C-alpha cells in the first residue's frame, strides 16, 4: 500500500562510499536479485498481491512482468493461505516460487500452510520431496501502520523446524541473501524492513550469494556486543557511534540469518566483550532476543561479565499514532543506554 511510502522516502541514511563500488538502493538490489533469479532459473516465478502494479512492492518487482511475462510474474487473489499452499505445491513439483507479501502480518493468515505443511513436507516425505519456496515480506513501521500492519514475526517462526529465516540489513545482503534463499531447497522466509527500502549501499553487479546461516561483524569492538539483524542493526550502528563518544567500544554483530542462527559468531564476540545487548525489530519476549540471551547463558556463560539486556518492543501492541510510536519503538539511544548500564555493572 502506497500510504507510508512518503515516510519511507523521507528517511535519511549515511551515504555509502561510492569509491567502494556501485551504489544501489536496498529496493533496487532486491529487484536485481529477482531479475537474476528469473533469468538464470526457469523454475523461478514471482507472485503476490500487486507485484505487477505500478507501485511494484517498493519497486522491488518493477519491470519484471514486462520482462518475464505474466506466467512468471503475476498478481494473486486475496487468499494468503490458499496461495501459500499453491506455492508449496508448485515448489514440491519442480518450481521455485517467490511469494511476496506487503507485510508479515498477512503471512499470519497462512501459518497453517507455512508451518504445518511447507516446513514439514521434506521431513514427512522422508526426503522424497523438497519445498524450495521463498516467502518474502517487508515489516511495516510508522505512519499509522498500527497493531495490524506492523508485526514482525521472526520470533514466532524461529522455533519451527524446517524453516529458514533471513533478515538483511544492507542492500548488499538484500541481494545476496535473496539469491541464496531462492536457490535454497528449503522454505526460506525473507523478512525485509520497509525503513531500509530506500537505504543506499554498495552492491556488486551480477550474481553472488550471501551464505544463509552466517552472521557478520559490522563493527569490531571490545567492550560490549550488540547483536541483532535487519533494521535493528541500523540502530545498533548508530548506538555504537553514540557509545564511541563516551569511549565505549561496541562490537555490532549482524546475524543476517535468524534461523539457523550463527551461534558461533555471537559466542566469539562475547569472549571478547563479555557483555550482550540483544536487539530486534520484534517483541522482546520469547523471540530473537530471548534466544540470544539464552544462548549466552547456555553456551557463553563463562564469558559473561554482566547480565544480558534486550532492546526490542515492549509487551504492547503497536500503537497507530505518531506520538505513541515514538515511545513504543527502540532507537539508538535506548540501545546505547542499555550498553552503558552493562559497562557500569
Amino acid at each position: 500500500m502506497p500510504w507510508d511510502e512518503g515516510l519511507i522516502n523521507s528517511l535519511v541514511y549515511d551515504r555509502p562510499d561510492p569509491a567502494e563500488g556501485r551504489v544501489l538502493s536496498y529496493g533496487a538490489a532486491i529487484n536485481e536479485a529477482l531479475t537474476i533469479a528469473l533469468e538464470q532459473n526457469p523454475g523461478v516465478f514471482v507472485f503476490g498481491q500487486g507485484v505487477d502494479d505500478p507501485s511494484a512492492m517498493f519497486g522491488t518487482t518493477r519491470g519484471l512482468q514486462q520482462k518475464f511475462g505474466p506466467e512468471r510474474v503475476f498478481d494473486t487473489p486475496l487468499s494468503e493461505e490458499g496461495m501459500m499452499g499453491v506455492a508449496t505445491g508448485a515448489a514440491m513439483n519442480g518450481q521455485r516460487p517467490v511469494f511476496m507479501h506487503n507485510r508479515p502480518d498477512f503471512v499470519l493468515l497462512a501459518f497453517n500452510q507455512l508451518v504445518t505443511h511447507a516446513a514439514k513436507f521434506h521431513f514427512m516425505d522422508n526426503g522424497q520431496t523438497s519445498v524450495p519456496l521463498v516467502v518474502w515480506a517487508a515489516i511495516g513501521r510508522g505512519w499509522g501502520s498500527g497493531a495490524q500492519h506492523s508485526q514482525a514475526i521472526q520470533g514466532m517462526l524461529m522455533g519451527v523446524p524446517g524453516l529458514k529465516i533471513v533478515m538483511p540489513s544492507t542492500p548488499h545482503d538484500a541481494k545476496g541473501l535473496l539469491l541464496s534463499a531462492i536457490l535454497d531447497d528449503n522454505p526460506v522466509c525473507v523478512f525485509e524492513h520497509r525503513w531500509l527500502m530506500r537505504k543506499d549501499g554498495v552492491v556488486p553487479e551480477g550474481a553472488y550469494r550471501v551464505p544463509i546461516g552466517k552472521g557478520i561483524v559490522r563493527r569490531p569492538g571490545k567492550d560490549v556486543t550488540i547483536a541483532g539483524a535487519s533494521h535493528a542493526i541500523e540502530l545498533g550502528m548508530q548506538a555504537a557511534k553514540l557509545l564511541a563518544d563516551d569511549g565505549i567500544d561496541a562490537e555490532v554483530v549482524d546475524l543476517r540469518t535468524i534461523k539457523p542462527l550463527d551461534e558461533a559468531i555471537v559466542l566469539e564476540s562475547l569472549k571478547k566483550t563479555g557483555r550482550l545487548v540483544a536487539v530486534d525489530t520484534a517483541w522482546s519476549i520469547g523471540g530473537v532476543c530471548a534466544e540470544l540471551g539464552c544462548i549466552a547463558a547456555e553456551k557463553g556463560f563463562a564469558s559473561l561479565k554482566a547480565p544480558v539486556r534486550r532492546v526490542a518492543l515492549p509487551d504492547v501492541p503497536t500503537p497507530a499514532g505518531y506520538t505513541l510510536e515514538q515511545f513504543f519503538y527502540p532507537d539508538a539511544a535506548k540501545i546505547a543506554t542499555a550498553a552503558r548500564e552493562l559497562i557500569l555493572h
Partner: protein
Amino acid sequence: MIRYQYEGEGVAGFAPLASNYPAAAQLAMFESMLRIRRIEEEIERRYYQDYMKTPIHLVIGQEAAAVGACAAMRTSDLMYSSHRTHGVYLAKGGDLRAMLCEMHCRVNGCAGSRGGSMHLIDKRVGMAGTSAIVGGAVPIATGAALAAQMQGRDDVVVVFLGDATTEEGVASESLNFAALKQLPVVFFCENNFYSVQSPLFTRQPVRDLCRWASAYGMPAERVDGMNVLAVHAASAAAIARARAGGGPAFIEAPLYRFRAHGGAGDDSKTGYRAEAERDAWAPYDPITMFGQHLTEVSVLDDAQVEAMEAKIGAEIADAFEFALSSPNPVEADLYKYVYA
C-alpha cells in the same frame, strides 16, 4: 480502455423508488452523502500537510453505499467494516471531531490514537468495530450477530466488505456459519472492481458474486451502488428480514472509487486502470445523480444546497480546529489497555 462499466439506470433509477420515501428522508440521505463528500475532500486537501500521520482510504464515489445502508439501520444495529472506514463511520453517526482527532493522532481520538484511520469506532452509535486486515471484520461481525441472537436482542449486524474480501476463505466460512445458524447479519459488498491497484479479473474468474453467496443458501441481491435509494431499499429489506429471524443476506453494490486506493488524489494515471474508465463513471456520481433527481422533482433547490454546504463547511472547519488544538498522548498512555 474501459474494463468496468456502470450498468445502472442512472438518474432514471430514482423515480420508481422515490415514492416510498418522504422528502425529509431523501433530503437527509442527500445531506449525509454531501457531508461525507465534503469531509473527504477536506481531508484530502489537507493530507499533503502531513499533520494527519495516518493512512487514508477515501470513499469519494462510494457514499451512496454507506449512507443507504446506514439509513436502514437503527442506532443499536451494529456496523463493522474493513480499512475503508470513513463513510460508514460518518453515515452511522460517528463523531466527526473524534474521527479527525484520531487521524491527527490525538489522545482524544475515537480510538485514543491507537487505531488510526483504519480503525475508526464509535460504540455509542453502533459503529462497532473495524479491521485493517482484509476479511478480518467479516467473521467478527458474524460473531456479533451470534451474540445478538443468543441474547435475544433483535439488533441486526451489517458488515461492509470489498470485492477482494470475497476471495479470503474466511468470508466463505462466515457465510456458511451465518446461514447455518440463521444469524441476523447482512454482508454488504462494495464492489469497486479493484483491490488496491489489482483489477477484479486478475483475482477472480468471471463470476457472479451473488451466485457465490446464494450457494450458502442465503438471499443475495445486486443493487446500483451509485443509487442511494436502491441501496437503502435492498438494505432495509435484508435488515427487516434478518430482524424478523429470517437469517442472513448478501448485497452486492457495484460502485466506483474516484480516488486512489489509499492516500490523496487519484492514481489512475499510473495506468492500473484507465482514466477513461474513471471518467466514464463520473456522470454517475452518487451525489450529483441524486441531487439532479431531487431537483427535477423539486424536492431540493439551490438555496437548500447552499444552506447544507454552509452548515457542513462550518462543522468541518470547527472539527479540524478542534483536532489540531487537541493534546497528544503521553508515554503512560502507551501502556494502557493492553489487558482488560
